[in-house]
């Protein structure tokens, strides 16, 4: 009997989900991606369709009206890559509520899970999001500027959050803030805040971004926003801040892997068709080696993400792994999107062709965080 300790083997369930996500992305995402980007809008029905297939909330346990699939970062990474392959923007929109749902599953008290999870357990898309990014060019989650202070039985949040996905429609936000004097990921607190909370102002206009354009996002201003003790995620114990940040990094990077694979798969046929100097440019060594490196690094990135995800699934602290993963994935996903545009030449610059959109999406995706949780 062979016991392979080091293994890339997926479970039967994971293989089914992978197939599902792949088929969904091919059928529903790729073809509408450009129109969504031009119109800055996502049809609700594609979000509903994704949720109907169980691509964002299947880990909600049966006790809270969910499907009760095994909670696994690897599973979410598989979904993230396939949806990201279809369209990074639509993938983010579909999976954004996971950044509210999964932390609730991971860290919520029994009461919190009972109260909130059933609202997100159904077959129709229900918007929610994490509020992480702050209003500074030097944002550092280990040094949060958004503060939550205890006042009697409540917490009072002060600060500004930027680029919060689905801000215009989200029912709830999971707001990350510093709860004490101490910095560091371990000291991050998370608060469940409904959109109509007093002291919370959601920007009227959506944020205007270079990439992931169709994903609506908002600026959230917390002016002494009062949050009852019952809505501090994890209650007295709080959350495992490292685990939370690591799971969103893994989620983000899984989309980047899908994006990288998409750019590579778009570049190969283009290079084979495009004739220059009497032959396809794919037969020129420079272009051929670009493509080889794009393929090689897409694979490498995937395994880096799997490694970090498998550590999360194994209950280990994945901070070192996600730091290393993120550095690598952000660098190479950017390079691949960039090389893709170059291979397309002039056509890489024109919006009739896909590549310029993937470039904008790549730069945007690789500087953002807090959008989906693996």
């Amino acid at each position, binding site marked *: *009997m*062979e*016991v*392979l*300790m*080091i*293994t*890339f*083997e*997926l*479970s039967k369930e994971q293989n089914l989900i992978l197939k599902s996500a792949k088929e969904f992305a091919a059928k529903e995402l790729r073809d509408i991606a450009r129109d969504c980007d031009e119109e800055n809008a996502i049809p609700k029905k594609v979000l509903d369709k994704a949720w109907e297939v169980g691509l964002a909330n299947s880990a909600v346990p049966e006790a809270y009206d969910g499907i009760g699939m095994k909670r696994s970062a*690897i599973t979410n990474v598989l979904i993230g890559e396939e949806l990201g392959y279809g369209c990074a923007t639509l993938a983010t929109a579909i999976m954004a509520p996971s950044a509210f749902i999964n932390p609730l599953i991971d860290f919520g008290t029994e009461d919190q899970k009972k109260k909130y999870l059933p609202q997100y357990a159904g077959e129709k898309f229900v918007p929610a999001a994490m509020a992480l990014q702050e209003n500074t060019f*030097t944002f*550092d*989650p*280990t*040094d949060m500027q958004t503060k939550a202070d205890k006042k009697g039985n409540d917490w009072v949040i002060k600060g500004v959050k930027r680029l919060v996905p689905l801000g215009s429609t989200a029912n709830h936000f999971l707001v990350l803030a510093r709860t004490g004097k101490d910095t*560091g*990921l371990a000291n991050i607190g998370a608060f469940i805040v409904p959109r109509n909370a007093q002291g919370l102002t959601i920007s009227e206009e959506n944020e205007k971004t270079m990439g992931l354009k169709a994903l609506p996002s908002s600026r959230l201003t917390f002016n002494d926003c009062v949050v009852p003790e019952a809505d501090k995620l994890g209650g007295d114990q709080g959350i495992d801040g*490292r685990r939370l940040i690591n799971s969103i990094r893994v989620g983000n990077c899984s989309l980047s892997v899908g994006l990288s694979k998409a750019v590579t798969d778009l570049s*190969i046929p283009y*290079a*084979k068709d495009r004739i220059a100097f009497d032959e396809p440019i*794919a*037969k020129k*060594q420079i272009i*051929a*080696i670009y*493509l*080889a*490196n794009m*393929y*090689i*690094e897409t*694979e*490498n*990135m995937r*395994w*880096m993400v*799997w*490694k970090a*995800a*498998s*550590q999360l*699934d*194994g209950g280990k602290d994945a*901070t*070192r792994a996600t*730091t*290393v*993963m993120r*550095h*690598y994935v952000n660098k190479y996903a950017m390079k691949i999107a960039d090389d893709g545009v170059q291979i397309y030449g002039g056509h890489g610059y024109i919006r009739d062709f896909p590549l310029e959109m993937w470039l904008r999406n790549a730069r945007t995706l690789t500087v953002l965080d807090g959008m989906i949780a693996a």
Partner: protein
Amino acid sequence: MVDFSLNETDQKILEEVKKLAKATEKNSRYWDEHEEEVRHMGQKAPEAEAFSYIFDMMKDRDKKEGACSPMLYQMTQSMNQGLGDGLMSIMSGQRNWALGNASLQAAGTPEQQAKWGNTLLAMANTEPGCGSDSKAIETTAVLDGDEWVLNGEKIFVTTGILCQGVVVWATIDKSAGRGGIKSFVVMKGTPGFQLEKKEKKLGIRSSDTAAFVLKNCRIPRENLLGLDEEVKQKGGGGFKGLMRTFNMTRPMVSAGGIGNVNAAYDFVQEAMKKEGVEMNWEAGPLKRTSIQDKMIELESQIQAASLSTLRAAWLAEKGQPNNLESAMCKSKGGEISRTGAQLAIELLGALGITQDQLVEKAFRDARITDIYEGTGEINRLVVARAILGYTSEDLM
């Protein structure tokens, strides 16, 4: 379930392997400085004799928990070979195995394998004018009665001094290109088979690299590996079989290079620690020093190459095709053997290049990785052809 960790038993074994690796450092500098001497791998590290218990640990593990994938085991050990010499040779316990033996396994008839199975065989394909373009070799083999007559020059023959025989690639019909290439077993002492020199190298100095001349060298007809005397018009045959062995050897070579860089990286981490430089894996960009950033870069490259290599090995172990993955992991392993080793020395500054310690040797030893067993350029062309659906005629 996806997992890249080792269980408790394997971790214990790996710890002992690392101790063995550390032990082989003792004579490592000597062999680096005495390139003119040639001793068998096992003889180079007498201090490793005390570690035979590791083989018992592995046998025990096989009995109790089931045999761990040998290829994955070997990869993991190669990647943890430390700064010493010859760990892999010691661990495999195969003191009579070289690349010619791999050819014998891939292309020889059962009788040939029985005849030469216990003979240490090197492999000779590279020539002064021909390396990457292996189909352009000029060494000829002409059938004369019951003998093949070989003429040509071979260089860069690993284990060329220690070996008892050499598997020589020669062409029986130059006009047929690949289809005319065969391999022949030439035993040392055969008239017309002359050892010309032992190379002096940048690194891996304890590996004996030789050059040979074949001048009207006559060998028995039965020494043609595979005994197929037919000239193939469209490639295939023996050439393809030999190419297929690369799918096993490329991950191993990549793992070796990664092992050099890993060892250099371990040294850097220890050196930093000793000088009070702490790695904070959580720190944001404003708080990280340039050294910490470089450490993250170095660790990420090592990890990417390692995972890529494990993937190729895992597929091979499952009996699945890994032609593409082998070429990919060799490309990446070769690449970081250069950039990673360079970055490690950069992190150490001026003292990194002194010969007080072995890390500069790791830099020199690692450098061959992107050159042999298919250069990084060739391996990337292999990848490009695979993903483009091109033949080597389509894309050179």
